[in-house]
């Protein structure tokens, strides 16, 4: 069930692979977030601007309404003045020499002591007062030049004219109607006013800055009253209305917004809340995108690992089937091999007996035939041993093995064929700690391989020496050598380049050497030869080995 073990690193690998494309995903996330934030931010700023404009409009409308109200109240306040003056003029005309009627009527018009009513008529080159009531110059007195100029204006105009007339520290608001008390006469009403009067102007419009001009244009000379000294009023609205024959101008502005502080600050509120919402929405969008991407990555990852798991499972199953087949074959091979060992042993005994019994009297032919029989039996025994060793994978039973004896024995079992010279260079004291039968098998295989590599003869060098804790056995032939491809495959079971043999020799060697904790290496040059080096534990280290 080792195949299941494959699953774990596979999953880890899948996780790694899923992590790799994270960077572009992050970039995409950032892009989505940035676009969302930009769009929402733009919408918020636009909304804020729209709200700002709406509120500005509202402010303007309110100001106009309020200024309009103020203007109509003012217009209303002065609407009756012309009628009063015309009536007073008529009374003055009919009252010639009896000013009591005029005076009685004038008292009805005059409401404060600042006000006065008078009638002037041509007197020589100038003008003189012919009737007066309230705060007015005495009868017969000439009027100043500026009044005279205004009188001329009144005489040339149909309807009432008005002006602001400075008089020392005071100023007069003067109304005049020409020809009201007969041709060439002018009927006046005038009222002195001061800063207090200006303050009164505000009245119910205390929330406005007002400036009243007796002119259609905001000329400083025509300024009648203002609620502030900062003139002209900036950013205000102008409202024109008619008083008598003239157009007055009321300019209004707001020191504090009419729509209220909350409304005034609404754009900022919209902007602030909007930006907050935009950031919030962006965060949510990003979080959702991240979650979706994470989920997608997770799904991909899981799918990959699932697919991998399925593949692993299939492979494991295939391997299991293969292993079971191999195991069944191995079982069969093992049984057959073991059953062959006994007869092979008996045959080898018989051959030994025959050789011994024939002794010196044996003919050359008989000796040759016996040698052939021995060699072929040994080859059969070697194949069986390889097969069994490979199938069983028997654990080694180490004991001290003198290599010189073992090499000599192996060489006697497999003597060199004709044309091959064996050079044996085993240092006498080389003793390894190993399973004798298994190392014998290793040497048998290495040496017969060496023979097989030199069909046209050559030199086989078998050397062994120990150094420190390890012993090194080298088997070198001067044979055909191997190419890299062959070299890479030689330890694979059932791989063989020979016409005979089952391709287990080197696989068995590798397994035995590995089981002993040793190493095997190969050096080979085509047409020059091959050298196998096996390194094993030297025997004197046995004491240090665990039991």
């Amino acid at each position, binding site marked *: 069930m080792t195949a299941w073990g494959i699953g774990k690193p596979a999953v880890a690998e899948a996780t790694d692979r899923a992590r790799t494309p994270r960077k572009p995903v992050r970039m995409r996330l950032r892009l989505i977030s940035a676009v969302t934030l930009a769009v929402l931010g733009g919408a918020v700023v636009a909304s804020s601007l729209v709200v700002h404009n709406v509120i500005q409009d509202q402010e303007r409308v309110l100001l106009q309404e309020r200024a309009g109200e103020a203007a109509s109240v003012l217009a209303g306040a002065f609407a009756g003045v012309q009628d009063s003056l015309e009536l007073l003029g008529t009374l003055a005309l009919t009252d010639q020499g009896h000013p009591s009627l005029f005076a009685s009527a004038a008292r009805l018009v005059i409401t404060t002591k600042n006000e006065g009513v008078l009638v002037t008529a041509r007197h020589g080159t100038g003008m003189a007062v012919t009737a007066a009531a309230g705060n007015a110059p005495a009868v017969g007195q000439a009027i100043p030049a500026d009044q005279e100029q205004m009188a001329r204006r009144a005489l040339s105009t149909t309807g009432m004219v008005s002006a602001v007339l400075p008089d020392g520290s005071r100023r007069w608001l003067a109304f005049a109607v020409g020809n009201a008390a007969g041709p060439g006469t002018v009927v006046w009403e005038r009222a002195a006013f001061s800063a207090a009067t200006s303050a009164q102007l505000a009245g119910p419009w205390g929330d406005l800055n007002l400036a009243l001009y007796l002119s259609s244009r905001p000329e400083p000379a025509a300024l009648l009253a203002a609620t502030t000294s900062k003139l002209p009023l900036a950013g205000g609205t102008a409202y024109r209305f008619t008083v008598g024959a003239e157009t007055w101008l009321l300019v209004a502005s707001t020191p504090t917004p009419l729509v209220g502080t909350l409304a005034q600050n609404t754009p900022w509120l919209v902007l602030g809340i909007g930006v907050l919402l935009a950031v919030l929405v962006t965060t949510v969008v990003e979080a959702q995108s991240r979650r979706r991407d994470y989920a997608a990555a997770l799904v991909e990852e899981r799918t990959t690992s699932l697919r991998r798991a399925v593949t692993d499972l299939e492979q494991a199953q295939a391997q299991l089937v293969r292993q079971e087949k191999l195991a069944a074959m191995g079982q069969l091979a093992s049984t057959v091999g073991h059953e062959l060992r006994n007869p092979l042993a008996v045959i080898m005994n*018989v051959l030994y007996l025959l050789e011994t019994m024939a002794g010196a009297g044996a003919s050359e032919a008989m000796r040759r035939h016996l040698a052939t029989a021995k060699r072929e039996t040994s080859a059969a025994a070697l194949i069986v041993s390889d097969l069994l060793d490979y199938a069983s994978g028997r654990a080694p039973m180490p004991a001290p093995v003198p290599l010189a004896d073992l090499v000599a*024995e192996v060489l*006697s079992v497999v003597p060199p064929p004709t044309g091959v010279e064996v050079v044996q260079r085993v240092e006498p004291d080389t003793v390894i700690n190993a399973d004798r039968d298994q190392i014998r098998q290793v040497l048998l295989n290495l040496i017969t391989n060496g023979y097989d590599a030199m069909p046209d003869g050559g030199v086989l060098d078998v050397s062994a020496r120990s150094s420190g804790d390890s012993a090194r056995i080298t088997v070198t032939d001067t044979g055909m050598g191997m190419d890299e491809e062959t070299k890479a495959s030689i330890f694979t079971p059932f791989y063989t380049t020979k016409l005979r043999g089952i391709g287990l020799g080197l696989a068995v060697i590798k397994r035995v050497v590995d089981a002993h904790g040793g190493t095997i290496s190969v050096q080979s040059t085509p047409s020059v030869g091959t050298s196998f080096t096996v390194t094993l534990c030297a025997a004197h280290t046995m004491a240090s080995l665990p039991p």
Partner: protein
Amino acid sequence: MTGFAVLVVDDEPGMRDTLMAILEIHGYRVSSAPDGDTAVTAVREGAFDVVVMDVRMPGRDGVSVLEEMGDPPPNVILMTAYAQEERLRAAVNANAFAVVHKPFDMRRMLRLVADASRAFQNVSEVTQ
């Protein structure tokens, strides 16, 4: 001629006969037993210097026979065609003189038998 007494124990007649013949040629006094029980009896009754015995036999196997050998036991060389590791380790623990895998090189077997004979002789000398 050595004159040492060797008991060959194997259920295979071919192996038993050839091994006996070869050992006789080399001067040993050789007896044989076809199974473990016979071998135990033979060892108790006769004095053998060396026992060459198969591990796998019907009835008692070579390792259990080795464990029942008299005191002092003869030197036992076990032969096996099988890789029965537990039994082989038990054999080693039961003081088998050597374990040889079939098929074996006859020269090695002869050397082992010779070594076992001498070893037994030495032990005998010491115990005397």
